């Protein structure tokens, strides 16, 4: 069954605005990773947050993790047209490296 679920399914914002998407999961995790997929392209790794971390930053990206609520959020600040893509969260477990993906959030940044 699906481990991660992203919310919202789709998001449309104006260039320069912030975009926030959430991911919920069901079972205990070791790591949670966020990926971006531009139309027709491969998955690009954005950021990994470990289960003992609460927040992580990378450039314009900010990821939070709340293991008590089994949820994570990805914030993209000052969005650009190039941020238009689908965003996926993926989790793995201790001693189980396979990733479980959510269905993704499609983000459209309008110029």
């Amino acid at each position: 069954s699906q481990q991660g679920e992203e919310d919202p399914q789709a998001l449309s914002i104006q260039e320069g605005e912030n975009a926030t998407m959430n991911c919920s999961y069901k079972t205990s995790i070791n790591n949670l990773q966020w990926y971006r997929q531009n139309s027709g392209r491969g998955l690009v790794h954005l950021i990994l947050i470990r289960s003992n971390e609460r927040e992580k930053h990378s450039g314009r990206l900010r990821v939070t993790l709340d293991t008590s609520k089994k949820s994570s959020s990805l914030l993209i600040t000052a969005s650009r047209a190039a941020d238009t893509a689908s965003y996926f969260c993926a989790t793995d477990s201790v001693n189980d490296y396979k990733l479980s993906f959510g269905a993704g959030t499609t983000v459209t940044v309008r110029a």
Partner: protein
Amino acid sequence: EAGVTQFPSHSVIEKGQTVTLRCDPISGHDNLYWYRRVMGKEIKFLLHFVKESKQDESGMPNNRFLAERTGGTYSTLKVQPAELEDSGVYFCASSHRGWGGEQYFGPGTRLTVT
């Protein structure tokens, strides 16, 4: 450092035919994974190699799928015979030895079975 590469980028075959997908992981990555995304569904795990050994093949849908990783370098995924429901995008990923950290994905192979 070269990323994960996959070949072909797109394959169109008829039902009943055979197709072989190839993945070249990042050099030095012992872990290699296959995933796929069929139309409208989430990305699903197929199997995991550690070097040339199959660590976990719990996601392989049936015995029409055969994955190999001879010599612990590149991997192939053969579908024989292909069925319509096999259509989708097949991703390969790799990660460092013994560390359940970042998995780096290739561009995927889009398989269309007609």
